[in-house]
């Protein structure tokens, strides 16, 4: 069996599962944020069960509209707070205590190798970076999980992506995943799992692996996974909040399809408006002037991303006419960036540093775009209206490309720009 199958077999108490089978599974953890949580709480109350199935395995995180931008948002936060108190939810990350939900789940030790985790957020697939099966669900289904700790899942078939070779300078994990999306398409992995493997993966940090798994859902995938290795175990050793059992794909496991990619040939990539699979090499996108540059989100708001951006922004000042927003993905990352002097670099270069939040990526409450404006973003979606006006345009790229473009005032290939 491959990793996805092994995790689902364990979670459903079976020796073996096959793609297409529907299995009733027990989850190791469940996560909801303040956009999806209040609907789940409402549905949970309708079910009529007085207590949640396990108050130590449900994690509630406020991240989308923080701090509250409107009275309505404040009401959503209040619903979450009350429920956490009433149900004695042990892990409730209120404003200022956590950050972007997926980052918090990983760095606070709620995601462990071999886990099955459901989250009421589509980017729950990020957890595959630690060898866990993480998948997004909706609010009503989350209510049923709150009540029972169980969910039915169809065992997905898996696509294996085998990366070999070393990344060129100024090419990042984001460029890899954009490249893969260009091959698979926005729906090419619908209902499937994607397993990222190969010699390149072992060299990537946990944060970089999270970037890969995070965007699996942009191809329709149910989960993105990386087999746990020494690096994974070292990472979770100190964080783990409970016992876990790492699982790995068998050598002879079945895959629906295998892609082989030599990463040394990949150049900086960019997803052009208005589809995540409208991917091109950055150098082929010429003369696009930008109004806003954004670095943040569960895709690319981690310390590696901030370090890479700072290294570039140290070279100059953000171009006149461009506003740059930088959002560390969590309070831990924010603190680390402060200690390393990165925040100072950003502010000196003319960027605006915000509190950890889904904010600008999600177009919910800040950093919105006006009609006709262009944004280059390190986030995950460039759908019409995603970051504000439906008449704005969003380009998705790596934090390196975003930072270089912020200095240039237009979209630039960081390799060409930084060598000049």
């Amino acid at each position: 069996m491959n990793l996805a199958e092994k995790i689902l077999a364990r979670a459903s108490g079976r020796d073996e599962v096959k793609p297409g089978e529907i299995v009733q599974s027990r989850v190791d953890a469940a996560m909801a944020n303040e956009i999806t949580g209040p609907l789940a709480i409402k549905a949970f109350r309708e079910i009529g069960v007085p207590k949640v199935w396990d108050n130590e395995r449900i994690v509630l995180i406020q991240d989308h509209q923080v701090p509250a931008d409107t009275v309505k948002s404040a009401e959503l936060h209040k619903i979450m707070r009350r429920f956490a108190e009433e149900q004695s939810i042990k892990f409730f990350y209120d404003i200022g205590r956590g950050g972007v939900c997926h980052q918090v789940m990983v760095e606070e030790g709620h995601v462990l190798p071999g886990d099955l985790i459901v989250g009421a957020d589509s980017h729950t697939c990020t957890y595959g970076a630690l060898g866990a099966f993480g998948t997004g669900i909706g609010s009503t289904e989350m209510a049923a999980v709150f009540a029972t700790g169980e969910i039915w899942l169809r065992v997905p078939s898996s696509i294996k992506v085998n990366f070999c070779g070393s990344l060129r300078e100024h090419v990042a994990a984001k460029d890899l995943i954009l490249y893969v999306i260009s091959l698979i398409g926005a729906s090419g992995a619908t209902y499937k799992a994607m397993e990222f493997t190969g010699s390149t993966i072992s060299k990537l940090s946990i944060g970089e692996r999270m970037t890969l798994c995070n965007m699996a859902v942009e191809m329709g995938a149910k989960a993105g996974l990386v087999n746990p290795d020494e690096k994974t175990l070292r990472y979770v050793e100190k964080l783990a909040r409970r016992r876990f059992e790492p699982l790995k794909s068998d050598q002879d496991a079945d895959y629906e399809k295998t892609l082989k990619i030599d990463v040394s040939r990949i150049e900086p990539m960019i997803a052009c408006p208005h589809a995540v699979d409208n991917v091109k090499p950055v150098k082929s996108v010429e003369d696009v002037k930008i109004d806003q540059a954004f670095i943040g989100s569960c895709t690319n708001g981690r310390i590696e991303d901030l370090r890479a951006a700072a290294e570039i922004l140290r070279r100059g000042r953000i171009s006149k006419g461009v506003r740059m927003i930088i959002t560390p993905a969590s309070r831990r990352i924010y603190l680390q960036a402060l200690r390393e002097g990165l925040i100072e670099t950003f502010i000196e270069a003319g960027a605006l540093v915000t509190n950890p939040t889904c904010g600008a990526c999600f177009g919910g409450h800040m950093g919105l775009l006006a009609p006709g404006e262009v944004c280059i973003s390190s986030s995950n979606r460039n759908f019409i209206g995603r970051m504000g006006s439906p008449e704005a345009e969003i380009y998705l790229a790596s934090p390196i490309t975003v930072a270089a473009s912020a200095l240039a005032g237009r979209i630039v290939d960081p390799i060409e720009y930084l060598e000049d």
Partner: protein
Amino acid sequence: MKIAGKAIVFGDDINTDVIIPSKYLTTLDPKELAKHAMEGMDPSFADKAKEGIILVAGKNFGCGSSREQAPIALKYAGVRCVLAEFFARIFYRNAVNIGLPVLEAPGVSKAVNDGDFLTVNLEKGEILNETKGEVMKAVRLPEFILEILKDGGLINHLKKKIGGK
């Protein structure tokens, strides 16, 4: 379960950000959400759908975020059923769970025109296009999904199960 209504047809990869833009997600009121259904594609959609329609789409309908507000907005705007080439998985589950019938029907986005009058038989997985006099086959729903839909969604279904014990 038989469902009838006029078709409104959309293309491929209709994502949840256009079904219900994120700026409206702070409301929990389904009627308020319904006013903005499909606003990203067609601001007059809510008006067109209010008599009760069948939404027909291409491949990967509902891709993007996990927001259940997307099927809720459609349901309360007057969408009685969604027919698509295939669905993004979270949207599909969410729709079933809130009691909005969804049916995969390969070829449907080409065979149906805007305004065609359709009758859908969920048990049989059959679509009758009354305007054209054609019958189309859809992928039949598994029995347990049909049951959830018949109960009006997962919560009622669970209540019935718990109450029945």
